[in-house]
């Protein structure tokens, strides 16, 4: 029982850390190119995208953990070269599973979900957490917590940046700053706030 509680505690701590103090966007810049497009594009529902990204992250995490533990052992000299391909395959397996579920459930917004799914899967915010958990030799509970937290952290970043859009589109913002430049400055200021919370530079 105590082992279960201990692992649950680890899971929660890593999920919270990945969501806030090691936020995928603000501290590591994962998926920031997609984020700047997402907040400006009204055709794609941000929350649907984030929900799919979090789901893919959670599905990928156990696969990447076992691939890293058993197929890419430290004895293999080529493990660092093959790792991105192996993790991309994990992401594509998760993609196929989600694709099948969406197709079989016959949801009303099925078409929209299937259009967004590749964008949410082939994303640095999916590959990045897998590479971090593998590089830092996280155990299973840590890996799962970090994956869930990274997905939710990405959603957290999207919500904050989307909220800021209303102010950033104001006429008081000079024309040359509108769009990408003001978004980057805003994300930078938020990253500074996260830095003041952690008080250290996140290792890359």
């Amino acid at each position, binding site marked *: 029982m105590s082992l279960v509680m201990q692992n649950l505690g680890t899971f929660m701590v890593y999920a919270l850390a990945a969501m806030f103090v090691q936020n995928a966007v603000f501290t590591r*810049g994962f998926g920031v*190119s*997609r984020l700047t497009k997402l907040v400006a594009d009204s055709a794609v529902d941000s929350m649907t995208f984030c929900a799919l990204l979090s789901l893919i992250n959670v599905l990928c995490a156990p696969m990447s953990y076992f691939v890293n533990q058993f197929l890419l052992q430290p004895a293999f000299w080529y493990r*660092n*070269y093959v790792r991105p391909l192996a993790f991309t395959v994990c992401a594509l397996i998760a993609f196929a599973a989600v694709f099948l579920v969406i197709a079989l459930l016959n949801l009303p917004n099925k078409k929209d979900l299937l259009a967004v799914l*590749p964008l949410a*899967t082939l994303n640095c915010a999916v590959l990045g957490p897998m590479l971090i958990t593998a590089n830092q030799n996280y155990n299973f509970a840590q890996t799962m917590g970090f994956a869930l937290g990274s997905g939710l952290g990405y959603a957290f970043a999207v919500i904050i940046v989307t909220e800021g859009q209303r102010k950033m589109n104001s006429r008081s913002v000079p*024309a040359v700053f509108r769009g990408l430049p003001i978004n980057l400055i805003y994300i930078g200021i938020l*990253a500074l706030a996260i830095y003041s919370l952690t008080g250290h530079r996140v290792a890359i």
Partner: protein
Amino acid sequence: MRDDRIRYFAKNMDRLSRRDRVFLNNPVIMQGLGLAPVVIPATTLGNAFILAVGVALLLTPTRMIATFIGQRTGSFLARAVTYALTAGVVYIGVGYIIDYLFGTGALAVGIYLPLLVLEPLIIKRYESPKRERLITSFKKGVITTIGFCLVLFLMAGLRELLALGTLGGIEILRVSLLPMASMPAGGFILLGLVASLWRGLVNTFKKNISLGVKNLQ
């Protein structure tokens, strides 16, 4: 500017604005691609060089191979899978070459080198249904690499100078003007400022061309 140059730019401005990947439609500044490598690990010119070699070896071959295979697979999903897997396979060779060239020095860019595999700069082409010829994919791959590397080196040089007072390891300033420049927050803010300046220059250039055409008439 000479009259014939003004006429040329005025006549082809729309086409140039779409196709030029260095100044008018830079992948980083105008399209917002490849932001993570520019903002996080590009803190010195040395790091930028490693990333530039990685992008140069990965972008064009991935685009060419995926274009070649993609001519046989038409759908959006098939294109997405083709580009992602191609980038992963090409990275095996790229990773080996980077290790051979830089050894442990490549650790300075950390996971941002393997992360290039799913970076929109490398694989975004899958989103476009328009087919392209192999020679076009080669040309666009090379010009996109040049445009990306230009901003990468500009930002890395700026961040190194402001944070450390050096350029390529050579001391230029005795003081550290802005230590925050080496942090992600500083990277985002500096890139935002550079992007606004760059976009301002592009707008001025376009205005001057249209003004020049009016004066010629």
